[in-house]
């Protein structure tokens, strides 16, 4: 390869090319103005990915700025690779959730696998050892011909990557809805721990300091991946398969160990992974944050393929690569560590005082442009938006003609795709490696993972109810945060902070932009009221195919802490004879409930109201009970309402429940999805104490019955046996997947 051969592959830079690269005419003109000339081909590629929706957040930035991001527990909020939160004793939790939606639809195994790899790097690049992974998945209708193939590929991809790197995958959530037929969502979250005095940031410093490339070699995979993630899909999207990257979890595992080993020395000035837009975004962001220039000479960069051009190298999204600014003279120390782990290591440039990004290769300069003006000129739009109209309340007449027995209704709900057991999925994930997993999600409302070498633990959950968000984005956004907060409280954890993964359709449509704005407003309200700031996040827009948008899905990943992993409480009933208590007001709200959709066949009404003051009061009360050792089992009331909550507690243990308080209960009370509620099981000798404490705290509490036998029953007799319920609940997904051709 030579300069001439490179030039022969380049195309003239014109408006047409800029459009092909995803820029608008105004954006192209802006680029001409900033540079005072026509950009080179390489520069055009770099500018287009820097200004892509995926990298620039141009539609969302204005609104993201309104989110609460501070608090005494926050060490580092949004803007770095991940958020950092204090958990005491000099320890921190570092976490983030990120989408890999478009690639996972095109090539589910590699798309999902590299999603896991990317989010792991965001966390360990800050100095954390990853201790847990989670994922939030949304697939299309089970009846859609692609769904099985996508479920199978995504699940194997997540498992194939996470299992190999040795980070336990401790839970998540999986929903099915026709709105995701053409755009599945794969949101992956990683949680790590680090010492507060050994956290690494991305701002470069020190003119003349060496810029070092480590990890895998660079190939042609993923070129313009960030651009693909910033556009709607059409029927020919599968032609974009070459833009999907290929993951290598073994190299990632080595990279984790090598980076953590290097971080234990004092050789690093700054470090960042090469994620979306690869070397472009890492070098530009690091130099830009430090107010410096950076000069790269690409000839010595480790390459997997022959005859690569500077354009291809700068835009490649090859995986498992990091960019490090070293202190001067530490190259040998660092190289020895990467040699030990058999990873590539190359000094590819230096920091300069010019403020420019300079790319040299084959003896010529292919890019020389100022970083700050180009970064600062990244477009920011105030897109027009329309609020979502309020839905009418669901009238009582919807229950006319409802004739199912309670047992039949429960069997129907427990077999529906959203409530059916996801064992088929989570058994493909190593949830135990590390030996610190107390609960995976499903065993408790939040996963609980002990901090390695200590007694204290981190609780983790991911939550979002997209059908609520569609009906009322503000309320739905607030509900997602409130449910995450509740799930942490339900295991006894003190909620600390969240990461938000905002998945929406095309923001150029005012209706869709209104969903985004509403969700941000709701999230903001809930985070403020619950002292639960946003410390990291990710936005994925243009989740549309042929004009059909997904349900608005602001997935919330949340983290809390427990002083001792062993005080955490799970959902399973522990013994017969425990008293079952409902915490919170009786159920009444049936709009947007699973019951309404699955039993009555209607998707309508507003989602349940979210009263954040009540949420906080009830959650603090339950957490206090758990810390006082008064709670045997705890589960928040969510999808399916009160009776589903109790049934899940019974199924998790094989111990039934006798519920005389529910004799002749109205479906609204049984299946209403009112918020801020919990079901607790407590030993009979402390039941009175718990009730007194509830009264003193002003928290409504109702005795529902007691744990007993192997069925759910009321005074009128058996509702349904646990065996029957378990069979339908465990049966759906394996049966569905067995039909995979």
């Amino acid at each position, binding site marked *: 390869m030579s300069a001439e051969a490179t030039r022969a592959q380049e195309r003239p830079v014109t408006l047409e090319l800029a459009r092909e690269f995803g820029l608008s005419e105004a954006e192209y003109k802006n680029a001409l103005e900033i540079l005072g000339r026509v950009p080179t081909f390489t520069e055009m590629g770099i500018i287009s990915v820097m200004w892509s929706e995926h990298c620039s957040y141009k539609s969302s930035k204005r609104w993201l700025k309104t989110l609460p991001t501070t608090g005494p527990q926050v060490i580092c909020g949004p803007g770095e690779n991940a958020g950092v939160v204090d958990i005491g004793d000099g320890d921190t939790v570092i976490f983030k959730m990120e989408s890999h939606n478009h690639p996972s639809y095109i090539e589910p195994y590699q798309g999902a696998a590299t999603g896991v790899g990317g989010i792991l790097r965001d966390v360990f690049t800050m100095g954390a050892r990853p201790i847990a992974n989670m994922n939030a998945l949304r697939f299309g209708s089970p009846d859609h011909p692609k769904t099985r193939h996508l479920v199978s590929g995504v699940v194997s991809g997540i498992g194939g990557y996470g*299992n190999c790197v040795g980070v336990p995958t401790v839970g998540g959530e999986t929903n099915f809805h026709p709105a995701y037929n053409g755009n599945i969502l794969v949101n992956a979250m990683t949680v790590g721990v680090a010492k507060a005095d050994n956290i690494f940031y991305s701002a470069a410093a020190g003119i003349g300091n060496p810029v070092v490339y480590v990890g895998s070699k660079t190939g042609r995979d993923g070129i313009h991946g960030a651009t693909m993630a910033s556009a709607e899909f059409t029927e020919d999207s599968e032609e974009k398969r070459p833009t999907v990257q290929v993951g290598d979890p*073994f190299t990632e595992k080595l990279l984790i160990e090598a980076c953590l080993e290097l971080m234990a020395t004092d050789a690093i000035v700054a470090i960042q992974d090469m994620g979306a837009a690869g070397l472009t975004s890492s070098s530009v962001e690091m130099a830009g944050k430090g107010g410096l220039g950076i000069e790269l000479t690409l000839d010595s960069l480790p390459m997997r393929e022959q005859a690569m051009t500077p354009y291809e190298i700068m835009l490649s999204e090859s995986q498992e690569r990091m960019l490090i600014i070293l202190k001067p003279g530490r190259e040998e120390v660092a190289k020895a560590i990467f040699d030990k782990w058999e990873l590539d290591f190359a000094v590819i440039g230096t920091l300069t005082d010019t403020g420019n990004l300079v790319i040299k290769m084959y003896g010529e300069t292919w890019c020389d442009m100022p970083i700050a003006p180009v970064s600062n000129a990244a477009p920011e739009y105030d897109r027009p938006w329309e609020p979502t109209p309020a839905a009418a309340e669901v009238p009582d007449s919807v229950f006319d003609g409802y004739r199912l027995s309670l047992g039949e209704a429960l069997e129907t709900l427990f077999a529906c795709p959203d409530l059916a057991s996801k064992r088929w999925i989570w058994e*493909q994930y190593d949830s135990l*490696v590390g030996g*610190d997993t107390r609960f995976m999600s499903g065993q408790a409302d939040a996963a609980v993972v002990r901090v390695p070498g200590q007694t204290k633990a981190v609780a983790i959950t991911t939550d979002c109810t997209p059908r609520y968000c569609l009906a009322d984005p503000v309320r739905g956004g607030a509900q997602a945060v409130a449910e995450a907060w509740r799930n942490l409280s339900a295991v006894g954890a003190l909620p600390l902070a969240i990461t938000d993964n905002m998945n929406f359709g095309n923001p150029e449509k005012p209706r869709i932009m209104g969903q985004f704005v509403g969700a941000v407003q709701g999230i903001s309200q809930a985070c403020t009221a619950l002292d639960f700031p946003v410390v990291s996040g990710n936005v994925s827009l243009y989740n549309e195919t042929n004009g059909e948008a997904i349900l608005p899905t602001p997935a919330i990943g949340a983290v809390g802490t427990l002083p001792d992993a062993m005080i955490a409480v799970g959902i399973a009933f522990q013994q017969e004879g425990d008293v079952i208590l409902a915490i919170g007001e009786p159920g009444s709200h049936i709009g947007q409930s699973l019951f309404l959709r699955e039993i009555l066949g209607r998707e309508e009404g507003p989602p349940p109201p979210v009263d954040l003051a009540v949420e906080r009061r009830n959650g603090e009360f339950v957490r206090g009970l758990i810390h006082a050792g008064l709670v045997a089992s705890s589960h928040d009331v969510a999808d399916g309402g009160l009776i589903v909550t109790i049934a899940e507690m019974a199924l998790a243990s094989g111990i039934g429940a006798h519920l005389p308080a529910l004799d002749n209960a109205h479906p609204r009370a049984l299946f209403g999805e009112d918020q801020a509620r919990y079901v607790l099981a407590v030993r009979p000798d402390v039941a009175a104490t718990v009730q007194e404490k509830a009264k003193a705290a002003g928290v409504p509490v109702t005795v529902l019955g007691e744990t007993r036998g192997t069925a759910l029953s009321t005074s009128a007799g058996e509702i349904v046996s646990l065996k029957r319920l378990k069979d339908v609940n465990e049966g759906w997904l394996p049966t569905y997947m067995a039909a995979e051709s």
Partner: protein
Amino acid sequence: MKAAIVVFPGSNRERDAVAALEAASGTKPYLVWHRDTELPKVDLIVVPGGFSYGDYLRSGAMAAHSPIMREVKARADQGVRVLGVCNGFQIITEAGLLPGALMRNGALKFVCRVQHLRVENTDSPFTAKYAKGQIVRYPVAHGDGNYWADADTIRRLEGEGQVAFRYVADDTRADPRGNPNGSVSDIAGIFNAKRTVLGLMPHPEDAVEGLHGNTDGKPMFDGLVEALS
């Protein structure tokens, strides 16, 4: 008891093994890197779980040819006890310390769950603390745990008491499923002829304290400490 844990690039359950051994013996085990050619003087060598070299070739096949494995084989020949768990079982089998092979799980999927096992032979330092026929629960977490050997080998393993653990269903539990991977004769773990080497797919090291939900793996480590101290 002094123990050494062999670490390959891609090992990932060495920390679990360290914790279990240290809790049982009160002594931190040595961690020995794959490129090393010598082992310290130890009573027990553990080859832990993970994905050595990514398992991009047949699981364990590359690790079996790493420099340290020559030394592990030499020590095993001298009677030093060797425990291979999961990827460690695959590695020591590939290295010829145990007969047979571990293939892709029958269902072609990775499987992680708590598994019921029956202890088949207690005449070894690994299993002495269990009762013959005792049902224990260890987690499994593997994609290639489908044990296979030819009929003659299986007859010999069965006849000589070399089957250490067998997968069983347990109808008294919430999750009664048995054999998770299609292993011949439901074999979960085997000894060598002298019963100084044990390889098994399930993870006793992840069932040693209350946090793990059960402590059925603890007697294995306690038994080793008792026998080898």
